[in-house]
């Protein structure tokens, strides 16, 4: 998910001067995603921050 046009499988990100995070993919499953998996919980209220 980056400018390279592909999913990043490994990243190192420094939130300077606080913390450095290192994230690595461990498992990849190619499958169809059901749009329902992106549904937001309608029982909760939305708080807009813009």
């Amino acid at each position, binding site marked *: 998910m980056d*400018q390279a046009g592909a*999913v990043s499988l*490994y990243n190192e990100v420094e939130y300077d001067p606080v*913390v450095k995070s290192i*994230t690595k993919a461990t498992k990849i499953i190619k499958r169809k*995603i059901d749009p329902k998996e992106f549904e937001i919980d309608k029982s909760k209220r939305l708080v807009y921050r813009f």
Partner: protein
Amino acid sequence: MKRFLFSIFTLFLCFPSLIGQEYFEGEIHFVSTFQPMAAKYKSINFANIFGEKSIALISADKYLIKAKTAGAWQVRIFDLKDTLIYTDYERSDSIVVERLDKEPGKLLEFEVLSEIKNVMDKPCKGIYMSYASDQLDMPFNKVNAYYFYSDIYALNKEAYINHKAAHWN
């Protein structure tokens, strides 16, 4: 005739680009570690804040990241079409909505790296970017990021044109 059809089928199977670009859709599991950058941050449990384990679900026009933070799930849904980010905390009665098309700060550097990193036995190309953070509610003022990616898991760049958060456009 059967052999001919089988050959055509095999050709498309091996070279999906012949029938158009195929973009990744699916699920990726991640593990994260955190290193405080200064002594005054050593007492903070960043794994509790950001989550050590996360799962990303990726489709053509949306993706989400689900991470377990301090015993509760946090789900962030990134809607590429409506350019909105929905953050849902398990123990909260509300969902925070933010803009995905807002830059976090000025891009300072962008570089394509020559280094190739092997991740899950796949050679990954890399990029580096650095940007100033103008997010006043965040304690950091600059972000330096290395991303390594495999072309096997290609995304549609067009869908990310307005993904200005983290400069992913």
